[in-house]
């Protein structure tokens, strides 16, 4: 990028016990500055206890065009859900 910065994706863990969640992106020259910028931009009100920054170019994503075919294998396997099975109502199962 012409201002010498890179684009980073920012993930924040809101509090202990929760997973990091994507919150947006940030520009920074290196990883350390990316962390600091992410802190200043995305956690000004205690929104997080931990931050990950990942170079945007390092993310490999599934394509939305193939969304149907890509996730299709899961579509017809209803027997993976507990509700597929009939059991007596009175039992705690």
């Amino acid at each position, binding site marked *: 990028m*012409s201002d010498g910065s890179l684009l980073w994706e920012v993930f924040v863990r809101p509090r202990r016990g929760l997973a990091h969640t994507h919150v947006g*992106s*940030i520009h920074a*020259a*290196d*990883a350390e500055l*990316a962390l600091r910028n992410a802190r200043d931009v995305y956690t000004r009100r205690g929104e997080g206890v931990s931050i990950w920054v990942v170079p945007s170019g390092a993310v490999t994503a599934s394509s*939305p*065009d193939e969304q149907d075919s890509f996730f299709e294998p899961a579509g017809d396997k209803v027997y993976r859900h507990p509700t597929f099975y009939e059991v007596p109502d009175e039992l705690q199962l």
Partner: protein
Amino acid sequence: MSTFEALIAAQDRVEPRDEMPGDYRATLVRQIAQHAHSEIIGMQPEGDWITRAPSLRRKAILLAKVQDEAGHGLYLYAAAETLGVDRDDLLEALHTGRQKYSSIFNYPSLTWADVAAIGWLVDGAAIVNQVPLGRCSYGPYARAMVRICKEESFHQRQGFESLLTMSRGTPAQHAMAQDAVDRWWWPSLMMFGPPDAESPHSARSTAWGIKRFSNDTLRQRFVDLAVPQAEALGLTLPDPDLRWDEERGSWDFGTIDFTELREVVSGNGPCNEVRIGRRVAAHEDGAWVREAAAAYAAKQGTRGAA
């Protein structure tokens, strides 16, 4: 029906890698960039008062508020970049006048009471405008707006509180508060844009789920919220035609001078040159910091793989 049309019809969200019509993408880039530019230019009228805040408490509040506006700009530039544009290019478009920002920031902040009036009225109007955008069809823009709206509430309340303090203060302080409201009221109403009849792109933006309510609907909503708030402040609004309409259950208000809005939009507002001049200067003065950071990263080999 295309995937895009199906998503819009189902009021579902469009995400960055989805296919979308070129006009939808261009409209979003223009709107999000203009919005981002407004956030960072909006730091200036209030930033002028940081060194002159009347107490440490007010200074800390104002500093936090102006910092938030910088943050809002960054959330929005990040949202725009998901559409395939580069932040540098957007800033370049701002600096050269190819892209606009909200005209409200081309008015000067003459007294300390202006900081309070801006918080109450300008941030208040922004909230009315922005809350519906939290449900707009483009995912990254909607998410940025939800985050921004949470923070705007503090902005409006601190302004209201400050204005109330002044209104209940000495006669001179009260007069200063009233003067600020007198100057900011009409420009705030213009923040909602031209009247519906003259708003050329509205229909398309509505069909695309970017716009949820018309300019005039949102303007009326703002007036209805502000009138009782002004009364609680012990201040008057500078409009002799304000009166409660029993049938509509809304406040009637006077005619807005949109020629003034057009003048300010086309660059003839009181502060257009100052605002852009200072933005460009800040960008240029900060160049050595960006260069130093890039040089340091290159030397340490700490740059990411991207």
